[in-house]
């Protein structure tokens, strides 16, 4: 099986879907690599212009409302746009098109229109300061009508993005900048490459995956934090604490059942995310469990999240506010002592 970075897997998914279905097209700032252009701020759309031409790899002005608004309009009228916003933070420049429009069009029409669009959203802190760093999931798990996915591996990236493109609803794809892999030498980036089937496959939404089995604590973590949780689990293992690590892979729909099944075994829940502590996506999961399965718990729920501050730029402060492996380990130890 070929080995790919997340960037390559995303690129592959888009190329295959564009090949398969003429209604799929890409739009966004700097997404074309014609004439020395970038092929996307993170090179995800590199090579597509040569294959599919400028009409289907549409470089736009710096106009986020236009990009997302066009995606909504095109999606309602027979196309399957994939919009790229460079940095997730810029979503705030076009929230209306996403929250008031994309998410609600189908419903407001009484189910008579569909909005099959994909919005790719790079997130995560990479030493660039507060306006290029946010992990935004919690905003969008709060919006009925949107689906929210967060692939953490190359395999998931290809399979889930393909499902997103074929889905008849607006789907936000959260991608972590430090997981892209490839040639980017971002400090803190994981140089991940994974096996990815060369042929067509899709992955269903709403199915998390157990990344590591364990019996003492269920750790639910997404994107970069899943890797930190895995590192923490390895370390904790040596100390005799056995962690089960679950990667939810999609946040809307969410695989509550998998978490609950795991809790039956462990009785302890820890949620780790780069989203903020207050009302990050984990708040909903914690609340859900406290509502529906509180009796499975042998300990308080633990959340390890980014502190409730804008993301500071200096490395020493940035790494303090983002959950580290050490913070996860410490929280797990605390959980076992209660």
């Amino acid at each position: 099986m070929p080995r790919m970075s997340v960037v390559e897997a995303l690129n592959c998914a888009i190329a295959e879907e564009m090949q398969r279905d003429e209604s799929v097209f890409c739009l966004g700032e700097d997404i074309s690599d014609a004439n020395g252009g970038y092929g996307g701020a993170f090179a995800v759309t590199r090579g597509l212009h040569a294959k599919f031409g400028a009409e289907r790899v549409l470089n736009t002005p710096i106009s986020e409302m236009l990009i997302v608004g066009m995606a909504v309009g095109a999606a309602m009228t027979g196309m399957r746009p994939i919009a790229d916003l460079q940095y997730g933070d810029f979503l705030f420049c076009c929230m209306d098109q996403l929250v008031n429009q994309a998410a609600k069009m189908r419903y407001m029409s009484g189910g008579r229109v569909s909005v099959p669009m994909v919005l790719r959203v790079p997130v995560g802190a990479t030493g660039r300061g507060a306006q290029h760093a946010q992990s935004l999931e919690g905003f969008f798990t709060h919006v009925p009508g949107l689906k929210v996915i967060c692939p953490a591996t190359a395999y998931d990236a290809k399979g889930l993005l393909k499902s997103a493109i074929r889905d008849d609803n607006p789907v936000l794809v959260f991608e972590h900048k430090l997981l892209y892999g490839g040639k980017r030498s971002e400090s803190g980036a994981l140089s991940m490459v994974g096996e990815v089937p060369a042929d067509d496959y899709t992955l269903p939404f709403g199915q998390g995956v157990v990344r590591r089995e364990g019996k003492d604590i269920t750790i639910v973590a997404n994107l970069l934090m899943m890797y930190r949780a895995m590192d923490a689990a390895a370390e904790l293992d040596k100390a005799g604490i056995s962690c089960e690590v679950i990667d939810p892979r999609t946040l809307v729909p969410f695989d509550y059942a998998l978490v609950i099944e795991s809790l039956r075994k462990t009785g302890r829940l820890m949620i780790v995310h780069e989203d903020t502590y207050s009302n990050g996506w984990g708040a909903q999961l914690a609340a859900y469990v406290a509502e529906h399965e509180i009796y499975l718990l042998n300990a308080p729920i633990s959340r390890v999240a980014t502190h409730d501050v804008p993301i500071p730029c200096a490395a020493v402060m940035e790494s303090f506010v983002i959950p580290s492996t050490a913070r996860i380990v410490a929280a797990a130890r605390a959980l076992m002592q209660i």
Partner: protein
Amino acid sequence: MEITELDSDKVSKKVCALPERDKALGMYESMVRIRKYEEQIYYLFLEGRISGSIHQSHGQEACAVGMLYDSRVTDLMASTHRPAGHDLAKGVSLESMMCEMFGKANGCCHGKGGAMHTGDIGVGAIPANAIVGSNIPISVGMAYSCKMRRTDDVVVCFFGDGASNEGGFHEGLNGAAIWSLPVVFVCENNLYGASTHVETTMKVRTIAERGAAYGIPAERIDGNDVMAVNEAGARAIARARRGEGPTLLELMTYRIAGHSRSDASAYRPDEEEAAWQARDPIKLFRGRLIGEGLASAAELAAIDERVQGQVDKAVQLAEASPDPLPEDALRDVYAGEGGI
């Protein structure tokens, strides 16, 4: 200033010939349908038989009908918080709209949309948009879709004078211009955005002159003259169909009612209202039809009556129609089965 703006050299004063009789009467009927529908809605609200809020379009019938009378069913249209005229002119059924106003299960949005979101994708009317200006970028996307799908369909995007100050206007018109997309931007300048006069919201005199900032040709038209609108609209639509790109039309018009349900329009001078009343678009058109011998007063009265009958029947239908089930509220959030 308001009415005299119509006399300014910025407004095309060309007198456009009447069309052949069938079309003329069809246009008349379409305008009357909007008028009678809106008047009926007004009374239904006063009587408390329907609730929520309304933004009514009567007075602006010439804009909707002039722009849309010749529309193909596959052409697309995007409307605003004030959608009834546009929807009816585009061909959304009067019954389904009335049922929507009553919140009934057989409304055009099955009761989920309400007065500000009426539409019917089946006739090219996407759900109307109650976020001022936000239908503009969406229309650009629809036009891009028309182009990609190699149709020669055209998008007509309506918005108000107030909307032209939204950022989405800027981003949308620019995008349509650079890709020469088949969309006609129709600004119905009724002099006010809610209670605020257009002159206090921009320093330039016309919205049409904003087209130049994007390289989009623009024209200011008497929006109460249905034939003037129809003529300029036809040119803009033909241009779009030929792949030559967008046009911006500014239609000078006036709403009869207040901005919304509870608005008594205290901000509008009596003389201004009177002056516009004298230029009521239906009255003007009726005058020409009779004056130029295309129809008799009796013929037109018969149309009025027929249309009133349609409206009455729609009200009866709506009142007799079943409410949605409460639990229907949980459907239509996502497409597809087994979603969430």
